[in-house]
């Protein structure tokens, strides 16, 4: 008798979510099997990579990360254009880091203005990420929703403490939300239920179950993502059948390992390659766990992951 590959029988399917504005949408999700298990099901849309843009000049970046963007680092619009024109970014992720009350604490209006400028300048889907301070994000992301009406931004992180306020604004001005929860499948599911109760349409929800960098709790995050996918695909849990976003770049590039010099830590090897490889590996892991959108920083790391996605999709 010939050998037969044992196959998982799937009962669920991830929702297809069109992102960005009408006419130039990018769709994610739709898979009916675990990531890249193309022998068991389909992945109609390849995972997408969003390139990071910061709302103001980053102060603590390593040279490796800074180098590709040195000429645009002060101007988010130019930065976003460069990501698209030079590096072929499929999406942009605008990090509103300077809204953080413990950082520059720029006002909601100012952040909304910057976002509007970037949104007007790019045609690809735009992710707008707050500073993860519940109160400040509420204020900022509401303002962002209002000024960018109709652009179908992807707004996050939306958490239990502010889902009503940001969810309501997203409904009113027609944006997609990122439901963000701290590495816990129950909380992830509950927030999706709550957003549903609020009447946020299901085709406007992306989930973020949290990501740690390689060596910084990645394995736990991986397990939770994997669990979410199991529940969604083989256990009929329809409140978890949403595409996953992984905002990983800022986790990787804040670790000690991407900054410490070779002189200080000779065992860690070439500083120039280290960050890139750590970012690429972190991305590769969450990709296998089930992520549909990766928020990444370094063009070389991105090109490594893109190649890997291509290989996996073509079965090479």
């Amino acid at each position, binding site marked *: 008798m010939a050998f037969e590959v044992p196959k998982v029988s799937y009962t669920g399917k991830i929702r297809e979510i069109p992102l960005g504005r009408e006419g130039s949408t990018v769709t994610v999700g739709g898979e009916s099997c675990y990531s890249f298990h193309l022998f068991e099901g389909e992945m109609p849309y390849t995972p997408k990579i969003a390139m990071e843009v910061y709302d103001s000049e980053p102060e603590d970046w390593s040279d490796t990360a800074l180098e590709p963007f040195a000429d645009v680092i002060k101007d988010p619009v130019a930065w976003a254009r460069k990501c698209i024109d030079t590096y072929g970014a499929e999406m942009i992720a605008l990090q509103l880091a300077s809204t953080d009350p413990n950082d520059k604490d720029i006002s909601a209006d100012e952040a909304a203005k910057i976002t509007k400028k970037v949104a007007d300048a790019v045609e690809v889907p735009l992710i707008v990420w707050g500073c993860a301070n519940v109160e400040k994000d509420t204020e900022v992301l509401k303002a962002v929703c209002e000024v960018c009406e109709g652009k179908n931004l992807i707004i996050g992180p939306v958490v239990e403490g502010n889902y*009503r306020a940001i*969810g*309501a*604004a997203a409904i009113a001005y027609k944006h997609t939300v990122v439901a963000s929860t701290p590495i816990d*499948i129950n909380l992830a599911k509950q927030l999706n*239920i*709550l957003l549903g109760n*609020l*009447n946020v349409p299901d085709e406007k929800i992306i989930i973020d179950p949290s990501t740690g960098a390689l060596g910084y709790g990645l394995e736990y995050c991986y397990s939770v993502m994997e*669990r979410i996918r199991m529940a969604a695909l083989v256990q009929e849990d329809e409140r978890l059948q949403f595409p996953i976003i992984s905002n990983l770049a800022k986790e990787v590039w804040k670790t000690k390992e991407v900054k410490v010099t070779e002189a200080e830590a000779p065992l860690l090897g070439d500083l120039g390659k280290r960050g890139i490889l750590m970012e690429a590996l972190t991305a590769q892991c969450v990709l296998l766990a089930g992520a549909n959108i990766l928020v990444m920083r370094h063009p070389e790391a991105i090109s490594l992951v893109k190649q890997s996605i291509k290989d996996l999709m073509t079965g090479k």
Partner: protein
Amino acid sequence: MSKIICSAAIRGARNIVGMAEAKYEEALKKWGPDQKIEFPNTTYYLPIIYGMLGIPVSTLGDVKQVMDKCNELVPAAVSDNVWLPYLAPALEAGMATFFAEEIIEAIRYLEEPDFYTKGEDPLPDNIWLGTADDIILRKRGVEFVDGTAPGFAAILGAAPSNEIAVKIALELQEKNLYVFMCADHEGKTMSEQLIEAGVQIGWPTRLVSFGPSYTAAVFAMGFATRAAMSFGGVQPGDFARNLRYNKDRIFAFAMPLGTVTDEWYANAAGAINWGFPTIADTPIPEILPTGVCTYEHVVSNVPHDKIVARAVEVRGLKVSVTKIDIPMSYGPAFEGERIRKDDLYFECGGGRTLGVELTVSKDMSEVEDGKVEMVGPDLDQVKEGDKLPFAMLIEVAGRQMQSDFEPILERQIHHLVNYVQGIMHIGQRSIMWIRVGKAAVEKGFLLKHLGKVMHAKYHQDFGNIVDKVQVKIYTDEEKVKEVLEQAKRVYKQRDARVEGMTDETEETYYSCTLCQSFAPSHVCVITPERAGMCGAYNWLDCKASFEINPTGPNQPIIKGECTAPVLGQWKGITDFVYKASRQKVEQVSAYSLMNSPMTACGCFECVATILPMCNGIMVVNRDFMGMTPCGMKFTTLAGMVGGGNQTPGFLGVSKYYICSKKFLVAEGGLKRVAWLPKMLKEELAERMKPICEEMGIPNFADMIADETVGTTEEEILPFLEEKGHPALTMDPLM
């Protein structure tokens, strides 16, 4: 429904529809059927008509079919000598009223384009804003969805004086409600009263002057109708969903101030369709039974100083308390603080003085929210080192409150009081003990502040079940004794209730899937006689937890038909567990160790397993570090039991369950227990006594071996034989 109200509403509706008809005929003659009519800057046409009927009215010609619909809806006038059910006709009359009023207002926009300002703020020469355009709707509607504005008060008429008008407006603003104003009472309007009193009105202050006529009430209803379409994804014409959305989510009510005319009745009847009740200051008939609205429909003759509180209650609006007004910091960080002798300023309870704390539920009318009563000296009247008797009696009321939740609320006092910086709380009930540190007294802390803490936290944490909270704090000995007597009575009833509750008396059990994050296929089934294996959740806790957080991990399960009484299997439970475990667990027994035992997460208090040689069962608790007769320590056993797997012969249990009458019934119950760690046996001694007596073996506890007898089966078997342990002669376990 009151016949008087219904006849008036139907009369009013007939007048209004007649008026609309006349206006329409006149306009049609003047402008022709192709003339455009609209509310400015909205994509929702005439929103109530569009939302309810799905008809996009954009020309005078389109009005015809709406007029036909109105005439179809409006019932004949009520005859004086026939009594019929009037609710449905009155509601339909109310609906027709709004359609007609929208037509009247739309024609007004056509004939007098400058009648309304069309902006957010009143102008110096025109205070009437008219309908909200889509920009205002979205901006303000967001607040309705996210809860920063829970709803609105639609006020018709005017208050008896400017001062009362201002007071009512202010109270409504404090509840974060929008105030939508229209209509006049004896030539006066609430909007004008506010302006005369120097109050700033307009959308930004949430005091919205829609229009001088009662027909402007449609701007309020139209706002609500559009909110459902814009934020609720409700399709035009889907009136049922639209109305339900409003009933469930928009906390609005009508507040007629002054003489209620037939036309006002018609508007009020219309609002009931949306689930918005009427709260009036005049002695009109009331409609108290619950039906379309969440609670009462028409409540009348409410004094002006109570009208806002009453309206909030009737509409079921929740109070939100954001700040705890005390001179100390507050939060979980202070929970573990100790107040030692050197820091001590004052103490009460704890065996040093009489001390008691009690939470009870009362009728809504008996509780005044936010009231804190203090009888006896407070901390500003005592010296360092003083001790006083103490009683805290918390009285709560809520539409969803049940007396079963009282002990759960009361149990929160411990950590909620401990969260206050500089205060230490120990114990509960009449063995409670509070210590107040010197630093707290220096900062001006008073015992009555505990009342504020409990009021705020009960609202914040238990808003779903609690609507009103008042607190009585006594240091007066007589008063304390009174509360203590009351408490003793209450505790007795509660204990009896818990003891009287059996798995047979309740039809609903609860699930707990709190631990699915690390044990994905684990589902706890919690019954009155089988508490959660973690010991943290009993059946009542789960019941309350579900009320408080309906999407949370504790869901009710209708147990259904009992398929195996001895094993503890029910159809409803089996189906639920199969689904919630994602098809992993096909059958589960509530009372068996050997046959489809319940899965475990990892947080069980104890593990039960079999001792084959002794034909018995042993139970070991988490705190016992030593070896046990099954050859494994607790930690090893825990590895066998946890992770959401069914392992016959191994089971996670709570300490409480060991002394339950339903403890492993399938294996013979407590009688099977051959070994317990000494510490556990001692802890359970009191609770085990009555069970042993019931079994007819009063000295059964002495027959159970412990580690002093032995930690292998060989060592304990002779002991069991010597004592004549019943397990030895029971049916074989395997």
